[in-house]
């Protein structure tokens, strides 16, 4: 089962739409509440990253019998040093984004914590691809 969404950079008002929709589906499938929570947190963090840093992006979610695969692809500045970005508290978010209550540098660490597999590929000035897999 496949779900696709698009995300607009800078649109914090609508951030969280894909994760809410995915949650609805997982609930209807009878997935365990704790697992759903992890997935939703990871996906929401990833969405907010696209909104906060990139210009635009897409979310593709595939749900199989025993796992969910979430792929977020964005057009944006990319991440020059992924290892550094993975450190808790490290952030390149603008002052404006921080004032909105985002950009605490916990996005990537939080994603890692809540997902079973996390793969990040990035090219500076082109964009970032994030793939997350959670098993049910």
């Amino acid at each position: 089962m496949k779900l696709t969404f698009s995300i607009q950079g800078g649109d914090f008002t609508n951030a969280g739409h894909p994760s809410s929709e995915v949650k609805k589906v997982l609930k209807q499938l009878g997935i365990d509440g704790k697992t759903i929570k992890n997935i939703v947190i990871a996906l929401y963090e990833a969405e907010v990253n696209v909104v906060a840093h990139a210009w635009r992006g897409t979310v593709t979610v595939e749900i199989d019998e025993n796992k969910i695969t979430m792929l977020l692809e964005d057009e944006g500045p990319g991440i020059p040093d992924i290892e550094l970005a993975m450190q808790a508290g490290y952030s390149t978010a603008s002052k404006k984004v921080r004032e909105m209550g985002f950009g605490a540098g916990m996005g990537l660490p939080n994603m890692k914590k809540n997902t079973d597999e996390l793969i990040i590929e990035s090219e500076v000035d082109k964009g970032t691809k994030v793939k997350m897999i959670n098993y049910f």
Partner: protein
Amino acid sequence: MEGNPKYHSLDPAKCIGCTHCMKACPTEAIRVVNGLAVIDDDRCVYCGQCHRVCPTHAFYVVQDDLAMIRSFKYRVILFPSIMIGQFPGKYSEDQIYDGLKKVGFTHIYEVEQPQQVLIDSINEVLKDQETPKPAISIYCPAIVRLIQGRYPSLTENLILRKAPHNLAAHFAIERLIMEGAKREEIGLFYATPCIAKIAAVKSPVGESESIADGIVNMNQLYNEVMKVISDKEVPDHSDQRRNLSSEGILWSLTRGESCHFGSRSIAIDGINNAVRFLERLENDQIENIDFVEMRACDQSCAGGILLTGNRFMTVERLERRAKRYPAAKNIPAETVRANTEELKKKLVLDPILPRPHFIFGKDRMKAMEKMSKAQRIVCFLPGIDCGACGAPNCHALAEDMVNNRAKMSDCIFLQQMWEGEGRITPDKAFLNVQKKWGTDRFKADCNKRGRRNEGF
């Protein structure tokens, strides 16, 4: 799954099979079949939205016969303070109490009397590190059912302490027994502001049995009292209210609970507001909140569907009233109850378990197949959520179809298309619509809704 009992229903003679209730239901529990609304009791959370929006007042709330109170020697009416708030300002509290006596009750208890005991007890739960934060109040039973069904993972955040009506019931029994009454001589009747409270009293969640012997709908009780109420001087009944505190009076209003708990608390009223908040809470997007008060009705219980007065006037009267009463902590414990410790034990609820009712069956593969199918079906539906199929929106219709509760031809748009393509005959199409909406739907009728300028 054990089905919910029926606490409200609708009068087929009054229901005109429109779509108002179906569209307003926050759990998509209503469908229109054969020109009549049908409630799925498993999904219903008793919020009463359908009652509110029904243009013909076809919904009614089941209740016990008021005459049954006569079979008890001691006839106790338990009612939330909100009851007082709806009476016109010219009637004093004593006149209202006197009216209740004339209706036939021997003892009158406003349920929010031993409030300090409850406040202390909830504070203990909040201090406990084990309780997930934010802790959610169980005060509004519609919210509890909403969480069990739609946000099952949040059931562990519910505060397992009983609502004031339970506390008051224990309290009333205790007091009467101290006065020499036998338990079987005491009849406890609860005056309810809404359907959800009826359900909470009759088939409580987290309790083994119901404490009240009967239910009186507040609108009926209001009418009964108004029939006999006197505007002359009446006996003083203030001893029946000697444990009532200003906190107790305000408890059922918005912020009535949240203002007492946690360093950061939130109060939400209105079921749709609650839904939006719970979505965020479930996504872990609410940070650092200790306590959440949530009520299904706008203006909390003052907006209950069984209240007669205007909700804002009711709030205003109660706020004025509360100023005349002492703070709960200033009411000496011994007048509240000799044995507070035992009362505290009785306050604890059993765990409240999830009751998810939005699952496509237990087999995940089959569920996924059904969901994919529903998604494909949605591609063909018009997406305007007109409700003419008898389901609240196109997505709900698609779900009904994969669950074998609806057919493609229920959609009047698809039907129109198929007629155009010659795939079904106009007669068959007409019959399909009649099946959903009844045979009288197409007859000219000058009493039809809209005919008497019922717009704005």
